[in-house]
Every structure is written in C-alpha cells, then in structure tokens.
C-alpha cells in the first residue's frame, strides 16, 4: 500500500490523545503530527490578529514551541485546539504590545490593502448602503478598519467570524466570561461597521 509522504492527521492509528501523551514525554515526532493538524488554524488566527506575514511566521513558531514545552501542564481540561488558540491569541496580542512593534506598525504601510481577494457570495452587492459599495472597495476598507481596530477586539471577531467559534469556546480562549465575549464582540462589530461606513462616506 502506498504510504503518503504527508503525515496523516490524527485518527488513523493514533488518536490525538495518544499523540499528546507521547509528545508530553518528549516525542517530538508525535508533536510534529499535532503541529501538522493544527498549524493551519493557528496560522489563520495569528495572521488575522497580526495581519503581517513575517510576524505571523515568528509568532506561530513561538506558539508551537511554547505549547511543546508546556504540554506537561495541559491536562485535557479543554480541547487541544482551544488550548493552542489560547496560546496563539495571547502571544499575538503580546507581540502587538511590545513597544518596538507599536512604533514599527505605526510607520508601516498596510500589507493587505493591495491584495484583498475576497470571495463575495452572489447577491451581496447592492443590498444596503454599506454593501452598496463595490465589493472590492468594501473589502479594502474592511481590511483597513480591521487593522485599526483595537487588537483585543480584532481577536474577538477573528475567533467568531473567522473561526466560527462558539461564545463558550471564545470565553475559554480569551480567558473571560461569556458575557464579556458578547459585549466585546458587539462593540468590535459596531466599531467596525462605523469605521467602514465612515471611510465610505
């Protein structure tokens, strides 16, 4: 039977639990399998918060290295993906708050504005004043507004609208109450909408 070069994500012979157990004992190959499984999701979350490719690369590496070292402290009290997202969000926010980064970002051109390729489903154009904007224009504005959004809010919309996480899981990842998730999301979204509308006026 042909054995693919690509590692098969979980399920097959080993469950995620097995892999975690082995990785906890220092088996880096087992951990590598976990990385393969979760890299995509962690990458997306970090990129959506940082919105910068190189920084995302650095932070994603940090996330998994931190996770590997900390795996002994992970007791399965939440899903591994939740736990990894928690580290990812924390690391990303921390990265943005370092002083050097604040200055650097202030003087950096928007990375995304040139290359927003967003699949706009049929029927979205012309529905409302907001979305009466040309889809491409809207998406550029959205990118610009997301960039300006306070990082903690950006993290919230990332987890909900980007990753379609439940409020409960978000609360777990962000380390806050569900009520906070709810209010934070609302504020983020209303601010974002005002920003997009403001930019469009």
């Amino acid at each position, binding site marked *: 039977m042909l054995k693919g070069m690509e590692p098969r994500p979980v399920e097959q012979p080993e469950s995620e639990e097995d892999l975690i157990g082995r990785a906890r004992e220092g088996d*880096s190959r087992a951990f*590598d399998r976990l*990385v393969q499984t979760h*890299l995509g999701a962690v*990458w997306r979350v970090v990129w*959506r918060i940082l919105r910068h*490719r190189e920084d995302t*690369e650095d932070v*994603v*590496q940090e996330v*998994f*290295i*931190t996770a*590997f*070292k*900390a*795996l*002994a*402290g992970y*007791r399965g*009290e939440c899903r591994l993906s939740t736990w990894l997202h*928690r*580290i990812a969000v924390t690391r990303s*926010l921390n990265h943005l708050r*370092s*002083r050097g980064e604040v200055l650097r970002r202030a003087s950096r051109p928007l990375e995304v504005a040139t290359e927003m390729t*967003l*699949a706009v*489903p*049929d*029927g*979205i154009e012309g*529905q*409302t004043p*907001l979305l009466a904007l040309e889809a491409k224009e809207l*998406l550029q504005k*959205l990118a610009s507004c997301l960039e300006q959004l*306070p990082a*903690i*809010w950006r993290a919230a*919309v990332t987890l*909900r*609208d*980007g990753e379609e996480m439940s*409020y409960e899981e978000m*609360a777990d990842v962000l*380390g*806050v*109450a*569900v*009520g*906070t998730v*709810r*209010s*934070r*999301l*609302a504020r983020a*979204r*209303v601010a974002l909408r005002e920003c997009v*509308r403001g930019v469009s006026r």
Partner: protein
Amino acid sequence: MKQETNPHPHELLSAFSDQVASPQEAARLQEHLRDCAECRQLLHDLTALAMAIGEEAVPAPPPQLAERIRQKIEAGSSRTTPSAASFWRSPFPPALAATLLMATTLFLIWRREQVAPDQAGFQAPPASVPVAKSETAPGVAEPLAPPSPAAEKSDIARNEVQDRELKSQGSISDTTQPSADEEGSAKTAADAAAPRAFAPAPTSDKQDASLNAHGTAEPSPAPGTESQSRDYLDVITASGLTGEDYKKAMAKKAPAEVPKAKDNRPSASALSDGASAGALKESAPVVSAEEARSLAYEGPGFSATFSEDGLVTLIARGYACSVTVPPSQAAPDGARARSIDDLASLFRTASSREFLATGSTPEDAPTAMAAPAVPATSSLELRNAQGDPIHSVPFNEPLSQESPQVLRTLSQGIHSLIFQRYRKELESRCGPLPATLLPTP
C-alpha cells in the same frame, strides 16, 4: 441581560445575528426592530460584515513552516537539560542576563517585603507569577527562542504595573473606545486599577510562567489532580475568574434576563385542547403586539422568526432582514392546516394539536432551544408574547416521508412564506435574497 445605556441594543443585535440570543431577548429585540429602522439596518450590516470577515482571504502558511518548528523543537528537546543549555547558548548576552538576574532578584526581595508571605509563591495571584521567567530561573524556563533583551527588560517593568491582567487587555480598547460599559459582567475590582495607557501586555508572560511552573518547576507534581488544573486555568485566565465564579455571576444575572411573566396568552396545555385551533382560526388575522405569539424556525440554511402581528425576520449568512408584512386575510371557511400561505395559516398549524403533540413538551425541555440535548439540524419553537417557549421541536432536515406530517407542512410552509409569499417585502427592504439560499428550481 443588563440594560444597555445605548438606546439601540447593539449587544443584543450582535448576539441575535449570531443566533445566540435567548428566546426572551429575541422577542424583545423583535419588538424593538419593529419600530427602529436604524437597528434593522444595523442588524443587516452586522451580519454582512461578519460574513465578509469570515470570507477574508488569509495567506497560506509557508510550506516549510512545520518543518522549521520541528527542527527547533528537536534541537531543544535533544538535550537532557535543554532549558539551561540553550539558555546559555542563546544569543542573549550572559552578562546582560546576569545583570537582569541580579536586578530581578533585588526587585523580588523588595517586592516580597511588600507582599504578604502567602502571596509570594506560585499559588499567588498573577502579580508574582512572572517570577518564573527566564531571567530568574534560567534552568526551567524558555529553553528556546529567548525573548529579546528589550522584551526582558520590559518584563521587569511589567511586574510593577500588572497586578491583574485581564483589564490591561481592555485598556487597549479603552484607548480608542472610551465608553465605560464594556465587558459586562466580567468587571472586577482589579479592573479599576488597570493601567489605561497602551500598556505592555503581561498575558503571555503569565501564561508561560504558569506553564513552566507546571511543566518543569514544580518539585513533586501530582499529575491530573483537579487542583492542579484549576491552578493552571486560574493563572492562564489570569483574571482569577474561574468557571465557578462565572457560573455564580451568571446565576446572579439570570433573573434579570427573564421578563416579568404576565402571560395572558393561552398556555400550551390550553392550546392543545381541541377547541383552540378553531378559536384561533377566527381570531388569527389581527393580533396586537402584546398578544402576538411568534414562531421561530432554525434550519441549516437560515433562521426565520414569524410574529403573529406581522413581523418577519430572516437571518442567513450574509443576510439579515426584518420586515412587517401585510395582515393576513381571514381564513376561508373550512381551512384546516393543509397548506400554509400566510401568517394566519402558519400559526394555525403551529398551534394545532398535531404540532403540539410532536417532540418534547415544555415540561420535559423548558430550555430545549438554548442547549438542545440531541444535535439536530433544525428546530421549530412556538413562543408566547413574552418570548417564552410554548412548545419546541428539534428535528432533522431534510425531512423524510417518515417525519410527522405537521413538521413537513410547517417546514414547507416556512420556506414558501420566505421564498414566495414575503420575498417581495424582504427584497424591497434588504436587497435580493442570497442566491445560495434560494431553493433550486
């Protein structure tokens, strides 16, 4: 939920667009949407924006990233005492490290004098947690990728300002959005003391510290004990807000969320009396807002709420619309719940004995809608004027020939109301229905 200071219920709208508002909240919102064009527009925009965010193209990770992570990890884990080894091999200049070590030690000695003795160890609140960071404990922490010297310095500074961490996250948002009532129930006394400026974030330091403490620094770990994971979680969340606290907070909050019960509508049991269907038939066409029941449908493609007094709300991915539709005609003689072509016939069917005998009774599952025990693709819920469930039925779509006839009638009816009967009203207010939603011809 708490009263919002904003006249427009933003938080509720946002929750509603995520379909996580409670039935009572949804009913209240419907009430508000009826009179508030601004909120109808906002609901629509929020849903559309959420979808746009979800669709945003994210660049793919570089193909060699997993490999790089693997190499770094293998390089680190091949040592018997990896932390110490790589720490001293790191580009981090040993002399500077020594200086920092000394500075931190002095700081800690000073701090220990300021803090009660029982707060100085790992079990202490987050303020003392960063102690475990690499500069004081090179043997146990951060074996790989040590932070830059600048970051290390600022870590020390952080110790002084960050007694609690949750709100320093909030402080970022505070800088741009100064309104005071964010974060709802999660506010703690410590929040007040949080730094307002664009403060360095202690979050991950705490996380690392707690992780390290559990991973390597604990002298005699008791793996898997509950207290250990609890400590871990407490420090991770670093707000001290445990699941228990949260439950308590929610329990306190809960009564306020339930509207005062002044139910003058027929109860489920009254409705299930044989006479009710006929009685409703006569009274259906004109119903005042105080008396209007609603029927909420949630399906795989969309969710829709029909209020007996004419408000129809449709929420789908990228589309949210709330319209008032023309009043239904009086039911023609002999009309029975055969087909559904307006709100009156919809409610006739939804209050029929057949429907009320389907699925669980409210007694069995008073909050079935909030957390359905069995994952089902769809649900139908009849609610009284206060938004309290009268009867709810989870079910799976597509329906088969074996499914109860009344569910098939209702499901078909709802689709035909949305896509035919009231489509014009919806589209003239909110633009064309998403093509993905439309039934294939």
